[in-house]
């Protein structure tokens, strides 16, 4: 490892925080622009137009780009086996955000499923 521990931690935090904030913003934006029914290709085109006209879309994509840049930076200074498992944390953060910021109903069954996915992703990347 060529970078100090604090740099690696900051970069991993960057991946998780930017990624989670990006997902939450994109989810909220898509709910706002996607209220109409989606049955025909014309509906899909209209949805695409409204998406490209929403500031939240660009904000969300910028956060995703920030997460990707942090990922590339982290991978250049720390081994994949350290960086990838840590990003599994974003499942938990996203679900917390969905429940408390987006006011989604997250039942105990869904929480158990999400925690299993988090643990599984951790093992898969380990």
């Amino acid at each position, binding site marked *: 490892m060529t970078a100090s521990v604090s740099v690696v931690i900051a970069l991993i935090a960057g991946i998780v925080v930017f990624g989670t904030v990006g997902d939450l913003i994109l*989810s909220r934006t898509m709910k706002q622009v*996607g209220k109409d029914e989606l049955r025909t290709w014309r509906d899909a085109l209209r*949805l695409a137009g409204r998406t490209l006209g929403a500031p939240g879309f660009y904000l969300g994509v910028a956060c995703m780009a920030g997460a990707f840049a942090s990922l590339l930076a982290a991978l250049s200074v720390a081994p994949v086996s350290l960086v990838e498992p840590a990003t599994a944390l974003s*499942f938990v953060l996203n679900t917390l955000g969905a429940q408390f910021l987006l006011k989604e109903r997250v039942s105990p069954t869904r929480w*158990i499923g999400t925690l299993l*996915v988090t643990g599984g*992703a951790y093992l898969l990347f380990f």
Partner: protein
Amino acid sequence: MKLHPFVAASVIVNSLGNVLLTLAMKRLAPTLEAHLAAYDVGAVLLTLATDVTFLGGLALLIAFFILFLTLLSKLDLSYVLPVTSLGYVITALLGALLLGETVSALRWTGIVAIATGVYLVTRSAEADRQTSHLEAAS
């Protein structure tokens, strides 16, 4: 367990995109490293822009992002995100089958945990739908 057809499509498109990009990057790595060592960014971009495997992988990942946004316009983030993690499982399996990567016992455990987790999240979404039908009927 019933998966939304768009969810199934996005999972498959995402994994195929990842596998194609990995194939392309592994094959192009020596060429790209030589260009980078010569600080020739134009040659790096030209190599990538003329590689069919790379372009195919990129197109599939863009298609995945569009499908993902469409799913988010109708479904909960707390449902879409865990369920699309099935893509990791398919990527791992494709990696083993197509790229000859080894899948250790630890990774198999991870695959089983993700599959079980996705099953539970999907079941919780079905339970939510049934209760909202009941609420609408009463």
